[in-house]
């Protein structure tokens, strides 16, 4: 048996909740929460211009409440040239007019909070758009007072050890600026110059941005591209101690300025877990960070019908400080990244999940969950159930709750950022506008098209994927054990069965997953729980009492069980 020391066991109790603004605020609410990631642009159109906006989103909040999610993560909605889907920000403290006004945003936030939904937004620290007034001023002249907001050099010789992340499009991390006759540093696209965090003024400006949004009422930030804030020669310019210094300072300011509001900071750092671990600090840096490497391994384990990839990555996942939590996801707005796998594993994943090279992008696969699973409900359900029962807070990507499809023929990652499919009516119920005015074409293929895959039809069916996901969320919410419990892996002889135990105080939940497309038998050593009665959590069925001898289970193809082990 393997034990993954998760966050120190912190039982949930009312006493731990802090009274803030008249509401009970659990300071670790994010550990129980289910997150829902969405594009304002792609979710719902409220003003009939073919582009999603805050009005539309506000109107659709009831769907999210019905689904049972706790927190919305909004992708960038700031003014932007939109050359990197909004991650190239031209103005941090405004709303892109296409999505509405600041008042629309405030209305949305109030409506969401009124429904018990929290909202986190994007904080792009590392870089701005080259259209941002700061950069326009900085490149205007070498003597500009804002020149030091960015990283400049006369040669490309500095920071040569830093890798190029968007290797498909960028040849160098330096781009020559004709106007000021110097190179500027960018870890991503050339139109996204990196901010210079060695300049204390930059930190102050960013803190101003954070205050602006926190004052609007947002519940935290998903902080983009955190490892790359500071550059130093002779290093990879990633995960530097100075970068951690910047982040710790921002966390300190948040905690000081908003005591008791339980604002959350979530790091995006596509790294090995041991490299991500420092971003939690000693509980004084990030509250959460995404666990990137486990995601491709879940897909890989399913295709290999072998739990080894997951066990391997769990074995190299360090424990977190109190209050720390992993963010887990199956799919998001980016490609299914294969950076954190070996070459052999990457080749395997490409061959198995992206045989058509057009589905590949950078070091990943630009597809949604359902097409990756060949639209096989059993596999979609198994992976989702695993996501919801592992040790972390699950993130759902919009549309995956109904099994939406994608279109790999569209450029970049636009194929997985298509309009939400609300109904089979005109424009999938997304926008009361002309079809030609939609910001992007709808998915309309026979399998995944909005006529067959949409919220309205699935809401009416008890056997739909949507109904199943809702049921899954309800079951998860019965207990805090999934969000806060420790996790311990069992290794029965049958490697097709992945089995773990979540424990919190006196509560134990046993999770058994069959990764194989065939029925499997497994014998579990549950001697520690002899005498307990397993109660299946979805249907409440009682299973035979556990004895000191090995416990035999038979598993349907891609089947899974969540058992609450009741000592009665």
């Amino acid at each position, binding site marked *: 048996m393997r034990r993954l020391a998760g966050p120190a066991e912190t039982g949930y109790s009312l006493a731990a909740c802090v009274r803030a603004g008249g509401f009970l605020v659990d300071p670790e609410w994010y550990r129980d929460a289910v997150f829902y990631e969405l594009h304002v642009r792609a979710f719902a159109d409220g003003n009939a211009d073919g582009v999603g906006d805050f009005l539309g989103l506000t109107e659709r909040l009831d769907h999210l409440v019905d689904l049972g999610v706790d927190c919305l993560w909004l992708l960038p909605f700031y003014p932007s040239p939109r050359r990197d889907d909004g991650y190239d920000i031209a103005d941090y403290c405004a709303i892109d007019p296409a999505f509405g006004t600041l008042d629309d945003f405030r209305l949305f936030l109030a409506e969401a909070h009124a429904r018990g939904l929290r909202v986190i937004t994007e904080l792009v620290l590392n870089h701005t758009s080259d259209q941002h007034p700061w950069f326009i001023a900085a490149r205007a002249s070498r003597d500009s007072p804002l020149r030091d907001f960015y990283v400049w050099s006369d040669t490309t010789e500095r920071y040569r050890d830093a890798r190029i992340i968007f290797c498909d499009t960028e040849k160098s991390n330096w781009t020559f600026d004709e106007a000021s006759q110097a190179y500027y540093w960018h870890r991503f696209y050339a139109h996204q110059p990196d901010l210079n965090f060695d300049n204390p003024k930059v930190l102050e400006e960013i803190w101003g941005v954070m205050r602006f949004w926190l004052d609007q009422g947002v519940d935290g930030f998903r902080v983009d591209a955190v490892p790359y804030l500071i550059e130093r020669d002779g290093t990879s310019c990633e995960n530097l101690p100075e970068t951690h210094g910047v982040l710790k300072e921002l966390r300190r300011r948040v905690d000081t300025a908003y005591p008791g509001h339980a604002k959350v900071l979530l790091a995006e750092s596509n790294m090995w877990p041991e490299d991500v671990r420092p971003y939690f600090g000693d509980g004084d840096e990030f509250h959460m960070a995404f666990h990137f490497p486990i995601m491709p391994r879940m897909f890989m384990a399913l295709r290999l019908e072998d739990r080894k990839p997951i066990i391997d990555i769990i074995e190299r996942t360090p424990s977190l400080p109190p209050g720390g939590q992993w963010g887990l996801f199956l799919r998001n707005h980016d490609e299914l990244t294969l950076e954190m796998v070996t070459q052999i594993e990457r080749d*395997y994943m490409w061959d198995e999940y992206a045989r058509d090279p057009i589905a590949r992008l950078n070091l990943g696969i630009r597809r949604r969950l359902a097409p990756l699973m060949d639209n096989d409900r059993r596999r979609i359900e198994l992976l989702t159930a695993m996501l919801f029962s592992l040790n972390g807070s699950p993130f759902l990507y919009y549309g995956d709750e109904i099994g939406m499809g994608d279109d790999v023929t569209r450029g970049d990652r636009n194929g997985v950022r298509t309009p939400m499919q609300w109904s089979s009516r005109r424009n999938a119920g997304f926008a009361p506008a002309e079809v030609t005015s939609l910001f992007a074409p709808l998915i309309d293929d026979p399998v995944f098209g909005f006529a067959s895959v949409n919220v309205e039809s699935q809401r009416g069916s008890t056997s739909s994927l949507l109904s199943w996901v809702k049921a899954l969320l309800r079951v998860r919410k019965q207990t805090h054990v999934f969000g806060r419990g420790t996790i311990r892996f069992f290794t029965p*002889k049958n490697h097709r069965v992945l089995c773990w135990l979540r424990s919190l105080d006196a509560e134990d939940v046993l999770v058994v997953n069959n990764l*194989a497309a065939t029925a499997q038998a497994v014998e579990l050593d549950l001697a520690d729980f002899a005498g307990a009665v397993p109660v299946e959590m979805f249907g409440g069925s009682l299973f035979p009492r556990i004895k000191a001898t090995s416990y035999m289970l038979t598993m349907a193809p891609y089947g899974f069980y969540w058992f609450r082990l009741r000592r009665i």
Partner: protein
Amino acid sequence: MGHQSILSDALLEDLVAAGQADVLVGIPTLNDVHTIGPVVQAIGAAFAGPLHRQRTVLLNIDLGSSDGTPEVIRRGSRSDELVAVRHPLRTVHRISVPYHGAPGRSGALRLVLAAADLLGVRSVAIVDPARGPPDPSALATFFLAPHATGLDFVRPRPPRSPHEAPLITQLVRPLIAAAWGRGFAEPAATELACSRRFAAAHAGMDLWERSAADEAIDVRLSSLALQPTWRAGELFTTEDAHAAHAAVPLARAFRQVVGATLRSLLEDHAAWTALSPASATPLATLGSPQPRTVAPPQFPVDDMQAAFAEGMGTLAPILATFLPNETMTALGRVAAGDAPFDEALWATVLFHAVAASVRRVLPVDEVAMALLPLYEGRAAWFLLATSALGDEGASARNTSLADAMQAARAEYVSQLPGQAPRGG
């Protein structure tokens, strides 16, 4: 009556855990601790390297080693210097179980084939634990051969000079090939790879029940695989897995291998005599022949000739029980140095030996023992006649031996009761 399973509960439990697999590699062992380490190491490297996409299982059936062989296999390495290879993708299944049946290779092989059937593999291979240090990528090619080529049975074919291994080239190979119309270059090889279909068809056969089948099992499997039902082939290799077996004394090796050959032809007599050799599908060949780098050994030809002459004199009463007078006379002339031991005579002798085995004039082992001096005579003559000819000349001789065998076979079949004479 309850069914007596050949699978122990422990093995079954391991097989349940291994589940469906693509490639099963079986190693029957008996006190092979000195050679097994590198072999298991190479198999692990093949699993983790070229075969990393396949679901692989290593199954060791230990026949009662007292030197710790199974422990070495379970650990995957014998000492610290051999670092176990970690599989990049999958869980590694390395099963080692003791075999409790009657001692001998055949029971172990049967278990491997039965396990392959249960696991639904695409390829199952038997690896000789005493073989020389193997190359992982060559091993992988061998393991995958049935799956990759659609063949049911594949024998490795190491490079050999025609002046080597006269027992194979002069007796076992041409006799079996003549019977079935096609034959493996190494019918007595201890390694094989086969399809699940072949494994399933043979795991349950009663051939395993005969105690006599034990030493004969390799030749017998070759013979079974040559039946027209099976798609059989050979894989050219660069290695010589036989190197480790060079030490067996001739008399014993001869009795075992020739006994096995005759017994195989006896067991499958109805099958091979009923088919027309000309219509047999030739064996598939995989890869290309590799050059032989080792010089052929020098045989004590004079001694062999002396043994022939002595044997002819001493064993005449026994030989006469299955060889007709004119053959005896011809042999006598050869022994006296008055005539060559040519292909036609040798082929005739061998098919009379087959007839003696089939008609049970003598027990098969005794027929084999009676043949030893004659073999020494033929082998000595062949080696002398071809020593100056080089490899090509020797190969030509062997081709004409194959033709003579076909003629003798036709003659033999035509004389069987109820057989219409067959052209040939």
